[in-house]
């Protein structure tokens, strides 16, 4: 099954068809999501208008975690089944995930100052999120740190899998320990503890960022496939050149 999925030509053919729809969904959900989050959703009873930071902060945090999970699983496929496309997929996800974890940290900081009274504290949730960001950076640095690309890919994949341990810590830190960060509002026992009018823009924004990420990942993978093809062609023409001279 994975062989079927991992065929670059088939990947190109399928994504060619679905890409416009992905982009369309991303644009529609982003526009409606931003409209609802900025103009047509109520103030919070405690936080007032500052609650609107949530509509960027929470989707970014989800995406940062979800993309890391996908990246690490893709690395498992690369290490175990040795599919070159799996490596392209993980390295295409890394910058997007890094961006979202940075966005989570920045928006969280901007939200923390007016609400908590501090930009940053070293509590378990904030620290584990910072660690997630560093795992992304580590993956990107390591995969480019070797002379032979394949060595970089392998080492970085091992690092990504090790970083998987951090994900449950990010998610459950607010339940396991006392933290300044509040516990989960949406995925929790007893259903969401967030008003429906606030849940709507939040879910729209989660869809928007997810489809945006999917679109960017496909675009990244395609670019990398073309790059590889170019390298192969260049190598081939160089060899022909040499054989002519020789």
């Amino acid at each position: 099954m994975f062989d079927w999925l991992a065929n670059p030509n088939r990947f190109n053919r399928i994504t060619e068809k679905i890409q416009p729809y992905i982009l369309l969904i991303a644009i529609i959900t982003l526009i409606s999501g931003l409209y609802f989050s900025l103009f047509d959703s109520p103030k919070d009873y405690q936080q007032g208008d500052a609650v609107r930071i949530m509509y960027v902060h929470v989707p970014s945090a989800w995406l940062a975690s979800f993309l890391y999970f996908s990246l690490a699983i893709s690395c498992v496929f690369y290490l175990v089944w040795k599919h070159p496309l799996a490596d392209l997929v993980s390295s295409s996800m890394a910058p997007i995930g890094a961006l979202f974890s940075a966005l989570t940290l920045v928006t969280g900081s901007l939200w923390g100052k007016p609400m908590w009274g501090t930009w940053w504290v070293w509590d378990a949730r904030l620290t584990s999120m910072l660690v997630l960001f560093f795992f992304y950076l580590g993956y990107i640095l390591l995969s480019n740190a070797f002379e032979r690309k394949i060595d970089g890919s392998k080492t970085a994949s091992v690092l990504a899998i090790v970083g998987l341990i951090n994900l449950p810590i990010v998610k459950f830190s607010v339940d396991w320990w006392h933290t300044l960060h509040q516990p989960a509002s949406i995925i929790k026992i007893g259903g969401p503890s967030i008003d429906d009018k606030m849940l709507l823009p939040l879910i729209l924004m989660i869809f928007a960022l997810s489809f945006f990420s999917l679109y960017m990942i496909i675009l990244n993978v395609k670019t990398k496939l073309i790059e590889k093809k170019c390298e192969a062609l260049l190598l081939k023409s160089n060899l022909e050149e040499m054989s002519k001279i020789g």
Partner: protein
Amino acid sequence: MNPKFRRLFITIIIILTLGLATKLILMALEDNIVYFYTPNDLIVKFGDTQNIQNKIRIGGLVLESSIKKEDEKTIFIITDKKKEVKVVFDGPLPDLFREGQGVVAEGIFKNSNFIASEVLAKHDENYMPPEVADALKKNNIWKDGSD
């Protein structure tokens, strides 16, 4: 065993081992990871507040009608509904600071008073418009934000 399954097996073993190691490390470091103690935690852990010399953080709810202003100082009581700690603080309070609000105070104990050097507000996981909050309060189905 074919090489694919061997690699998969090794990967799974590595994840499990690292997971276990991480769990043990986190258990050992629990005291450093916990961001604050509740007043009841303090008694359970240290017995008496006299025994606490170092800077620590305590968290809980600001007790109803316990906030007093004395010169520049704000004096209030942090409670977890079991035990209480009296906090003295002179500094800027966060906007969310009010009666019944979750707060975290950092400071040291002096004669059973807690001299705070920083007070942060904590908010809970409930998000709702003010009208809904009012309606809940009116109908007495408001649940207090103690966790």
